[in-house]
């Protein structure tokens, strides 16, 4: 296969096989075996069989630098390389399945709980070992060929094709939301989605064609039309305003289209958008990695409870907290935010001297202290301790009920999110935002330039804390009762993942991050169990492949390109690899870097 060394092909194949074995052992196949994406045959489980081979082939056919020249692999050998690596991987996977079957599934299950008879049946297509294994290998080879194609085909074909493929998977995953929208809008959805399951074949085809067509049109004339749209966006304020109004209008009617169940998911997404926006100020703007953000979330939630007349759960019934008030929510929430800003200052003051990873660990420690204290008996008379509180205000106003009606809650959350987004947008373009930027890039230089790092660090902590506490307040209203289980380290990590995966310092990034990380798992309950696994994997992958996040901050990515020598080498390497990722993303390259140069 000439262009790609045999060793690399075999290694990629084996790694792909190992990946498939990992997916099997961790239990993803059994979990998603029946989640139909298109028709009855294409389930998410089967996509996951193909995926490792796809990824391995995609990786091994990457352009290589030979003697200082970057050489892409030709289409024909790309397909062949993909097929061979997938063959190796599929064979490896099959051997593992055969071994499991021979050794005894029950004996393996004593260690790996996911290895069951249904798993073997699923992987062998109910034909048993070894009759089903050739089918498995064949499927892997298909994946490998597609992977090779996705890398080596001409751009004009591979971009639309990958976009279409991803759109099909995405719409398949959104099977509990898109049909509802269709029905609410008065359209028939039966031709698109089979009842209570994934896309129909016709639907899959339509989605593929539309997505591929849209992508092709967007990138037509080597992206000239794309540039034209972007330029008119930049130059005409009216176009921008129009876009903004359109987005707001969609946001405003969204819950009416989606019904209560999905609105509830959207409400949770909104809470994390709020948390993400707050954390984004601390981490994204000011560059202070805060791992204890749950402290503000908990503070906001409990303070709201205490101030609005919630009572403690006790063994005998209910009790009034030691400190209690019965304020209207819309009064209390501002007090909460103010107090949280004070807490931010309190947390920020002692850790001012610390930087980078030490700061991260201290904030993690402070967050954990808050979690432990909320759950301890010591906190019982104040906030209920292990039993928690209930009866948080429903914040009723104008006949809207924000606790029992998720659609109403969505609007409340939306209002807060818009406020927070507006504040952080204005901040990022203000003198304060520039000071944070300078401080983040080099604290000593910023200091030398006359920026009071003390002041701006404290400001970041206070603002971030205030916004985070608003998230907590909303959470308290939406759920009505508070228990310590809701305020654990996972909140901090999730908020951090939202900010980082979306793109540090980018407001749209936070929204996208929250939609991806909380919306998808919320819509597909099957994901719930693997949520943390996916977050962890996504954090690692994004840091290695695309450290600027899915929707990078414009100014930030420009800075990334201008870092010092060591970081430069790293950034260009990451940039080269992120092209690969960008190619798979719908819409092709997100192209923000280019825009920066103007």
């Amino acid at each position, binding site marked *: 296969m000439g262009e790609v060394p045999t060793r690399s092909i075999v290694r990629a194949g084996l790694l792909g096989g190992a990946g498939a074995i990992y997916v099997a052992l961790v239990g993803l196949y059994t979990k998603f075996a029946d989640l139909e994406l298109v028709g009855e045959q294409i389930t998410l489980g089967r996509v996951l069989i193909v995926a490792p081979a796809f990824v391995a082939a995609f990786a091994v056919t990457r352009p290589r630098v030979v003697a200082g020249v970057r050489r892409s692999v030709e289409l024909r050998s790309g397909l062949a390389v993909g097929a061979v690596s997938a063959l190796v991987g599929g064979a490896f996977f099959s051997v593992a399945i055969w071994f499991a079957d021979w050794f005894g599934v029950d004996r393996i299950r004593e260690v790996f*709980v996911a290895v069951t008879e249904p798993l073997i049946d699923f992987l062998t297509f109910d034909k048993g070992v070894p009759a089903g294994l050739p089918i498995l290998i064949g499927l892997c080879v298909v994946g490998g060929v597609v992977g090779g194609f996705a890398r080596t085909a001409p751009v004009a074909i591979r971009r639309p094709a990958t976009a279409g493929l991803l759109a099909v998977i995405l719409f398949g995953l959104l099977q509990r939301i898109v049909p509802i929208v269709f029905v609410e809008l008065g359209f028939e959805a039966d031709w698109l989605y089979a009842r209570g399951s994934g896309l129909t074949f016709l639907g899959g085809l339509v989605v593929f064609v539309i997505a591929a067509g849209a992508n092709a049109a967007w990138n037509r004339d080597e992206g000239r039309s794309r540039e034209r749209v972007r330029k008119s966006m930049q130059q005409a304020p009216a176009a921008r305003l129009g876009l903004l109004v359109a987005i707001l209008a969609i946001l405003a009617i969204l819950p009416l289209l989606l019904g209560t169940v999905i609105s509830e998911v959207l409400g949770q997404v909104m809470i994390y958008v709020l948390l993400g926006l707050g954390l984004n100020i601390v981490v994204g703007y000011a560059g202070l990695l805060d791992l204890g953000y749950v402290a503000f979330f908990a503070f906001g939630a409990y303070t709201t409870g205490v101030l609005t007349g919630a009572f403690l759960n006790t063994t005998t019934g209910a009790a009034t907290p030691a400190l209690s008030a019965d304020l209207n929510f819309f009064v209390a929430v501002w007090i909460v935010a103010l107090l949280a800003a004070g807490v931010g200052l309190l947390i920020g003051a002692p850790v001012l001297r610390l930087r980078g*990873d030490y700061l*991260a660990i*201290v904030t993690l420690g402070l967050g954990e202290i808050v979690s432990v204290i909320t759950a301890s*008996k010591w906190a019982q008379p104040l906030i209920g301790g292990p039993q928690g509180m209930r009866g948080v205000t429903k914040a009723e106003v104008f006949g809207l009920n924000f606790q029992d009606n998720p659609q109403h809650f969505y609007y409340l959350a939306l209002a807060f999110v818009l406020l927070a987004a507006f504040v952080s947008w204005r901040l990022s373009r203000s003198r304060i935002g520039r000071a944070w930027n300078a401080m983040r890039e080099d604290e000593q230089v910023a200091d030398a330039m006359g920026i009071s790092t003390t002041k701006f660090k404290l400001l970041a902590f206070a603002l971030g804390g205030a916004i985070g506490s608003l998230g907590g307040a909303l959470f308290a209203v939406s759920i009505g009762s508070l228990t310590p289980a809701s305020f654990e380290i996972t909140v901090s990590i999730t908020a951090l993942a939202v900010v980082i995966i979306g793109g540090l310092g980018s407001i749209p990034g936070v929204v996208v991050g929250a939609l991806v990380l909380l919306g998808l798992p919320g819509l597909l309950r099957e994901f719930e169990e693997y949520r943390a696994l996916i977050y*962890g994997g996504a954090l*690692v992958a994004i*840091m290695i492949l695309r450290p600027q996040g899915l929707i990078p901050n414009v100014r930030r990515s420009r800075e990334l390109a201008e870092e010092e020598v060591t970081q430069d*080498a790293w950034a260009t390497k990451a940039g080269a690899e992120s092209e690969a990722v960008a190619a798979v993303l719908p819409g092709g390259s997100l192209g923000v870097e280019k825009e920066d140069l103007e």
Partner: protein
Amino acid sequence: MATATDDQVRAAELGWLERLPWRRLILILLSVVILAVVAIGAYKTLTLPADERYSTTTWKNFIILGLAQGAIIGLIALGYTLVYGILRMINFAHGEVFMFGAFGAFFFSDAWEQSGFLNSNPVLSLALLLIIAMLTSMCVAVLLERIAYRPLRNAPRLVPLITAIGASLFLANTARGFFGSQSRGFGVPEALDGTWTIFGVEVDRIQVVVLVTVIVAVTVLSLFVAKTKTGKSMRAVAADSEIASLMGIRVDRVIVTTFAIGGLLAGVAAVLFSITFESVSFTMGFRVGIAAFTAAVLGGIGSISGAALGGVMLGLLQSVGPALILTGYGIPSSFQLKDAFTFLVLVLVLIFRPGGLLGSSEAEKV
């Protein structure tokens, strides 16, 4: 440190009160308050009425328990300190490396308990369990380095830390998917039940085993780092990796070795932890990992003897601290706050003495 000279100039002109920057003043006040809280709490606890007071035996038990737990924490802390010394990064996922070792040992001890091997050959089986756990942890640590950390070798400092957090989450949930989410009982050889009397003090046999093993492990590690060629190259890379590579040391290989050694020690700690607490679960890595990191910072991160010392101190603080200080204030079930205590110590150490007890003070660099 340009501000230092400014301070000196100003110091010559001003009285001592004006010389104190407000931040330092706050810190001094804070430390006075903390000391007072500790002292009053301890005094109150020790002067409780006789029937509410802890007996001397209880205190002795607290101390021995603290020593044993601290020794285990110290072993894990060594993993943090070694990696930090060389890469200047916090390997947040080290607690998960430890957890995998515990699971590796668990499956064998479980099988051997059923076959009777565990009770007929307690010493041999314990030794084998140690080796199994060490190998498991080592493999996980090396894989972790290869997959997650190596591609980020020259990245800005926060990037590897975020990766490490992700890796920690990923590994913990991998274990959940692999081995199930419930915690499992870890079989302990019957020969380890009961106590031995050493110098007139009754000590649980397990705690004796733990302490002896840890002392052996730390001695071996110190000798390794001090005497062998690999140890020398590790020290060289820790001092300056760029110069070390110019001197012909393969930095990547040294880094892998460091991760492997950290993994081996975590494996030892995993077995000791499992026989002490008799259970394993996929969540066990996180809290232990944080405690170990705290110990490493407490002793001075980057310093081997510091990590061991920090571990023992933290273990003592955890077992004695809540009882000694919080009971006096009448706080119910003070042991619930044990972890809060750990974190409080961590925060205070980082605020007051970021260099740790044995480390050099490099507050500005951290």
